């Protein structure tokens, strides 16, 4: 048996045939020479040779790899059978394609979010340097920022564990000017960023060490996508410039298409180098430091080295302007190395467990679909009893038959998987689109890499075994004599076949119950979140973000200018109320300070708001007063606190008049605030999670002097009208101010994308599972009716009423249902722990949900079994008995 011969066996067959023919010719002419007639000569020659076909066959067999040949036979036979039964084939392939496709789509998403490495050189060498435990609320923390610039400089000076280190930070850039200004996703990068990652320029050159110099920076690099869409793909020359954050930058080059930055799920548009300002902020944690491990260094070694060096680094970069204990806390920070080959990702953190759960759900749906298919194939096998019996009688080995049946189901699974992978492309793209919201576009490249294909193949194999095994075993184990005697009627060996079907239906029902319960839980959870009252007004609020860098306001006048802007917005017609705030609620952002009040110490969230804030947001005052014009910049600092604050720090004592002292921070000196009012608890940065101790202070006394402010506008008019009016007013009175508008409720709901996705998908799959389960139940009950036709006929002949017959069948169905529900109820309780963190407002063992799901299943089961039961009751006893 050689592969060389195998692939050329046709060639050899032809050669040998020619040889045989030539032999017969030679022998024939010999015979003629001996004196025979030509006809006799030839027949004598042929007789002497023997059977040429046998010879050819033997040689052919020597050339084949026999098992491959017979599997190819099986495949051809299976394909032919499928084409003869197009209906069955379509149903089977379609359900397989959907099931495998859904699974693969989810896996593809998981792969892109969690498993795939960054498109850079040797991603496995990449590690991130972070503070163990994070900065614990100290200082100002930006998204993806782990350390400060001074810490980065220390690391850059000495990094024994890493061959290359680089730093980056995320920032929004304003490109263009005035009303034309557009926001772009930006990253600030160190000089070695692109070189360390091994990213080659697509056009021009990428940033290098010498681009980092004294501020302002003058060069920038754009991403391929941005270059194509916003710059028209024009060639880069020394004159290509962009106005970024108010400064002209020369665009030196373009990054290649696959490179999207370090954040999975986000694409950067523009990269600008860090510049060296006169003074580096020591408490701004906005930098992410990464590096390539030196050969021979592991993460543990690197972490150990960093830990040993931490004390020196922290002392060198010590924060100033804080209380002593805070500075001590900073000095005790320890650095360590973490794996970073797959980059960082907010997307991953948010969706990781959701995706795994969805994968489990789709897996279970596939199991149910497989059970249906198995039942289908069992039914089909019974119609093929005759054929199989004949083959067994002719001497076929049972193993051979078993293998052939398995090949048939594998064929179905393979075709289904092929279609499924194609479907998955489409489905996963839809999934990614549904994850994007207006503000947060999710950009994930979906690709079918080897992991996805391996997954699909694995699923297909498992599926084939699942639904092919039982029918194959049953069919090949048939006794040919019995089969041929009763072939076609399928009543033989009834109980054996039936018990497999019963087991499968029970499995389907229990899995359906689990999925239905899950779906209901997620849907109700989502509904709870959407209708949840966070303690402040959601509807009718429009958010206006204003940036007034170009207005060139003196630092002392910033609060006054902000007040002017609020007044301006308030006076727009249609606006019922407007207020500014330093931190927009329910947007994920937070700001707090350490405080001391009496003997109690701790932290409190701090928000500076204009006097109309509580009225605008619909927050009632429980005691004391709100802010007014008398609380100006020069006056005594006052504050309004919430009930959690009082509970935690004042143990229920009367808060009005009490003084709290904040600990110092750069830009926020230690201040004494007198409490003048109390408000009820509201949610802070998130709909989930508890309410922290919150302190509100007057906007006029806000220490922050950045040239921006956020104004919340309450109006009865539709948001589009409000936005238009406010935009026009600001453009008229302060044309240099940049505005950005958001509908507050939309912004909150956008943060619920994950919950919406879970509700939608689990609901979809729950319904699908229930439908499939009911189809399965219907099939089995129908089968029971058919197989017990004789018995029913006899009963009716002996006087049973139709109702009694129906009742008998329904009882059968009811038994199956009861067992399935019992198992199904036990399962969710075990599997619920994984989903607990995603639910809101209910526990995973919520009895109402369980009862609803059971009720639904019972209802549909009743219908599914009633139809065949009714058919049973219509059986004509004479017909039934005659066809026995």
């Amino acid at each position: 048996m050689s592969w060389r011969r195998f692939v050329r066996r046709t060639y050899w067959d032809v050669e040998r045939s020619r040889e045989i023919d030539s032999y017969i010719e030679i022998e024939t002419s010999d015979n003629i020479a001996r004196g025979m007639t030509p006809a006799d000569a030839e027949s004598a020659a042929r007789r002497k040779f023997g059977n040429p076909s046998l010879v050819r066959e033997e040689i052919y067999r020597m050339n084949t790899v026999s098992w491959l040949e017979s599997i190819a036979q099986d495949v051809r036979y299976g394909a032919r059978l499928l084409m003869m039964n197009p209906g069955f084939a379509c149903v089977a392939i379609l359900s397989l394609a959907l099931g495998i496709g859904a699974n693969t789509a989810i896996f593809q998403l998981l792969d892109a979010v969690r498993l795939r490495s960054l498109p850079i050189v040797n991603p496995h060498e990449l590690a991130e340097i972070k503070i163990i435990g994070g900065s614990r609320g100290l200082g100002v923390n930006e998204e993806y920022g782990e350390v400060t610039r001074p810490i980065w400089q220390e690391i850059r000076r000495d990094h024994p564990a890493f061959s290359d280190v680089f730093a980056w930070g995320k920032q929004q850039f304003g490109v263009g000017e005035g009303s034309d200004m557009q926001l772009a996703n930006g990253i600030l990068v160190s000089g070695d960023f692109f070189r360390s990652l091994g990213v080659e320029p697509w056009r021009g050159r990428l940033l290098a060490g010498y681009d980092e110099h004294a501020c302002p920076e003058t060069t920038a690099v754009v991403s391929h996508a941005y270059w194509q869409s916003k710059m028209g793909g024009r060639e880069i020359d020394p004159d290509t410039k962009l106005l970024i954050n108010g400064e002209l930058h020369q665009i030196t080059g373009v990054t290649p298409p696959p490179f999207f930055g370090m954040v999975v799920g986000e694409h950067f548009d523009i990269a600008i180098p860090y510049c060296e300002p006169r003074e580096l902020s020591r408490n701004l944690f906005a930098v992410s430091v990464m590096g390539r491990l030196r050969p021979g260094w592991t993460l543990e070694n690197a972490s150990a080295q960093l830990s040993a060096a931490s004390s020196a680094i922290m002392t060198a970069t010590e924060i100033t302007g804080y209380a002593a204990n805070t500075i001590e806390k900073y000095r005790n920070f320890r650095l360590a190395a973490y794996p970073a080959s797959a980059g960082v990702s907010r997307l991953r953190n948010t969706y990781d467990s959701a995706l795994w759960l969805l994968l489990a759900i789709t897996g279970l749906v596939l199991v149910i679909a497989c059970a249906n298919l198995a039942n289908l194939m069992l039914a089909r096998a019974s119609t093929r009893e005759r054929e199989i019996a004949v083959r067994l009688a002719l001497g076929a080995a049972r193993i051979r038959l078993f293998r052939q049946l398995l090949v048939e189901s594998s064929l179905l699974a393979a075709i289904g998987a092929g279609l499924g992978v194609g479907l998955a492309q489409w489905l996963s793209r839809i999934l990614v689109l549904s994850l994007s919201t207006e503000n947060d576009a999710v950009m994930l490249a979906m690709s079918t890499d080897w992991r996805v294909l391996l997954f699909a193949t694995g699923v297909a194999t498992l599926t084939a075994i699942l639904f092919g095994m039982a029918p194959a075993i049953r069919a090949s184990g048939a006794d040919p004599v019995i089969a041929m005697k009763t072939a076609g009627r399928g009543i033989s060996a009834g109980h054996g076949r039936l018990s497999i079907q019963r087991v499968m239906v029970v499995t389907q029902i229990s899995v359906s119950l689990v999925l239905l319960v899950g779906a209901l839980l997620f849907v109700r959870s989502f509904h709870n979140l959407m209708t949840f009252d966070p303690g402040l007004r959601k509807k009718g609020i429009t958010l206006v973000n204003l940036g007034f860098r170009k207005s060139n306001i003196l630092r002392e006048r910033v609060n006054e200018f902000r007040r002017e802007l609020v007044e301006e917005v308030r006076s727009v017609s249609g606006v019922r109320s407007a207020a500014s705030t330093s931190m927009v609620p329910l947007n994920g952002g937070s700001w707090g300070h350490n405080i001391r009040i009496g003997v109690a110490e701790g932290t409190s969230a701090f928000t500076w708001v204009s006097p109309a804030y509580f009225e605008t947001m619909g927050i009632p005052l429980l005691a004391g007063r709100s802010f007014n014009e008398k609380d100006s910049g020069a006056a005594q600092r006052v504050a309004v606190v919430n009930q959690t604050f009082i509970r935690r720090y004042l143990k229920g004592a009367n808060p009005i008049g009490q003084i709290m002292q904040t600990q110092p921070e750069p830009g926020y000196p230690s201040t004494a605030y007198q409490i003048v009012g109390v408000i009820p608890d509201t949610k802070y940065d998130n709909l989930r999670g508890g309410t922290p101790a919150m302190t509100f202070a007057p906007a006029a006394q806000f220490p922050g002097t950045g040239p921006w402010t956020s104004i919340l506008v309450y109006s009865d008019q539709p948001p589009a009208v409000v936005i238009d009016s406010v935009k026009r007013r600001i453009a008229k009175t302060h044309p240099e101010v940049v505005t950005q508008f958001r509908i507050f409720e939309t912004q909150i709901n956008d943060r619920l994308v994950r919950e919406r996705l879970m509700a939608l998908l689990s609901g979809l799959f729950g319904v699908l599972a229930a439908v499939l389960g009911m189809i399965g139940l219907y099939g089995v009950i129908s089968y029971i009716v058919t197989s017990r036709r004789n018995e029913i006929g006899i009963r009716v002949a002996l006087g049973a009423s139709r109702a009694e017959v129906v009742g008998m069948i329904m009882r059968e169905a009811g038994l199956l249902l009861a067992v399935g529900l019992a198992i199904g109820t036990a399962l969710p309780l075990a599997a619920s722990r994984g989903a607990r963190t995603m639910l809101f407002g209910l526990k995973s063992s919520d009895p109402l949900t369980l009862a609803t799901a059971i009720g639904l299943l019972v209802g549909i089961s009743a219908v599914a079994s009633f139809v065949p039961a009714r058919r049973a009751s219509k059986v004509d006893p004479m017909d039934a008995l005659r066809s026995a």
Partner: protein
Amino acid sequence: MANRATQTEILQGTLDMLILRTLAAGPAHGHTIAHVIGRRSEEVLLVEHGSLYPALHRLEDRGWITSFWGTSENNRKARYYRLTATGRKQLNVETSRWERVVRAVNQVLRPAQS
């Protein structure tokens, strides 16, 4: 049925040897090989063509003989076989093995008279 099978097995090993020996004298085609074996053994060993061609195929695959198309004695196209160097070595191996077997069998059949 069983008898024929054992006969074929024994003959298969020896058939390979006989073919190689016949080709040692020079290239020949299938018809000639069968003819030569039959005539030299005085018609005792009659080669079934059903086994000849598979044997030739096997020997060719093992590299002991090679084949080429040529013209036969009466101007007909025929497939000729030729012994290769490895084939010649194999012939020696098989021949010595055969002689050892024959000697052993003879010793058993005619017990040593000493």
